[in-house]
């Protein structure tokens, strides 16, 4: 009898140990559980006096960590300015980029600012504010190129390199090749943008069209010059991700972002971080 009781106690101990990690202990405060309801997210943030924002601090000049451990970059300054207008403190949490959407879904964080584009797949999982910064593309050419570009269509008739599967490649196909401005055999698709940059530098092709910021970095490394930076070839922009259904938060953030776009605040922060 005694032996059996011992065994049962052992069993219960083992089960307890097993379930220690899986036990559901509803607690009074559930900052995480509210993500599903959404309504009142803004009120929650205001009541807490702070908004917890996730980022992936490995993408300068948007977000990185300086030698003293502070979060710095365009996104960081922007979210702090937004927090000021919201009237709450901003707490920034660093996570790998791939974990951010899950974290906002599970209510671990209130929002994500990480140079993130509102793609269709992401939009199914979370909501996005209006873009705070449009994606820009750059046309780059060799240092000794005599080409002058004022609009994207000025690329017509010149050999051009793009990265396979990108929006830039589609833009070239739709707007230059399909319209007959550039013969199809003058368009070169590369596996990687830096390979295209090398071919431009070596004079095998005349132009390169790609995302503006990496283009500027590449141009510095391979000695290219940027002919034109434009929004019209790019699609969409960078938005802040928030929990799905947090409509009040979205409305308020949209309003603040629009305000900052209109009064030039965002422009100023962009320039401070050397962004085109």
């Amino acid at each position, binding site marked *: 009898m005694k032996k059996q009781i011992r065994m049962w106690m052992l069993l219960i101990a083992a089960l307890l140990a*097993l379930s220690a*990690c899986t036990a559901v*202990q*509803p607690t009074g*405060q559930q*900052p*995480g*559980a509210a993500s599903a309801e959404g309504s009142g997210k803004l009120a929650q943030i205001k009541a807490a006096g702070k908004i917890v924002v996730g980022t992936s601090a490995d993408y300068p000049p948007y977000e990185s960590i300086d030698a003293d451990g502070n979060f710095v970059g365009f996104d960081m300054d922007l979210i702090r300015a937004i927090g000021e207008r919201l009237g709450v403190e901003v707490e920034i949490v*660093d996570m790998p980029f791939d974990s951010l959407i899950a974290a906002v879904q*599970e209510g671990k964080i209130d929002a994500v600012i990480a140079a993130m584009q509102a793609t269709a797949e992401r939009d199914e999982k979370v909501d996005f504010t209006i873009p705070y910064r449009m994606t820009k593309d750059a046309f780059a050419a060799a240092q000794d190129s005599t080409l002058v570009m004022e609009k994207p269509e000025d690329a017509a008739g010149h050999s051009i390199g793009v990265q396979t599967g990108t929006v830039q490649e589609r833009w070239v196909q739709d707007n230059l090749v399909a319209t007959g401005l550039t013969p199809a055999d003058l368009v070169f698709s590369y596996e990687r943008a830096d390979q295209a940059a090398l071919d431009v530098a070596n004079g095998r092709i005349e132009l390169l069209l790609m995302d503006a910021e990496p283009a500027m970095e590449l141009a510095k490394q391979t000695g290219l010059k940027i002919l034109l930076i434009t929004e019209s070839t790019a699609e969409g922009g960078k938005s802040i991700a928030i929990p799905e259904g947090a409509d009040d938060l979205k409305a308020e953030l949209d309003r603040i972002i629009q305000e900052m776009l209109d009064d030039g605040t965002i422009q100023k922060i962009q320039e401070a971080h050397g962004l085109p």
Partner: protein
Amino acid sequence: MEFFQNLVTTFNFILQGVWVTIGVTAVALAVGLVFGVTMAMARVYGNPFLQTVAAIYSVIVRAVPVVVIIFILFFVIARFVNLSPFWAGSLALGFASGAYQSEIFRGAFRAVPPGQMIAARAIGMSKLQAIQSIILPQAARLALPAWGNEATLVLKDSTLVFVVGVPEILRRAQQVSARTLEPFLAFSVAMLLYLVLTLLTTQILQWFERRYRLQM
């Protein structure tokens, strides 16, 4: 000169992650030890039901990548219990390590001649008493070398908790390499720190092995 300045800044920055790594490893090893010993006891000396429970735990947890367990604990369980990234990561790592440790202790328990258990029972000890005062002291010594190996594995697996945002050595190395664009320097520093930590761990465990060696 500039190189040394970079090295010092990089080193100081990543160094702050060392305590996090040590914390995660210590919690995970302790949690894993509790799970491991309990499950090994259930496996070797438990009734058929307990044996099955322990076997299922061992098989399933060892089949699932640790990073998946961390994700589940942080993102699913934390819906109900608000665990910080540090605790979610450490507990998940400990839960996973427990399965491996249970195999280590199962082997150690089996290595103690079964006659000792029978003899202990014959003089009126209960099963638990016998395990506690006869089997476990011997099994723990037998388990120590393999356990030391597991400890270094857990130390290196502690890098996985960065997926939920714990700023341990590896994550800090990534952050610094993103800023300075010198991945080689950043990850060399990380490698050096892991090397030091691993050597330290093995030294401590070897001291334990010598200290508690059975005098035959």
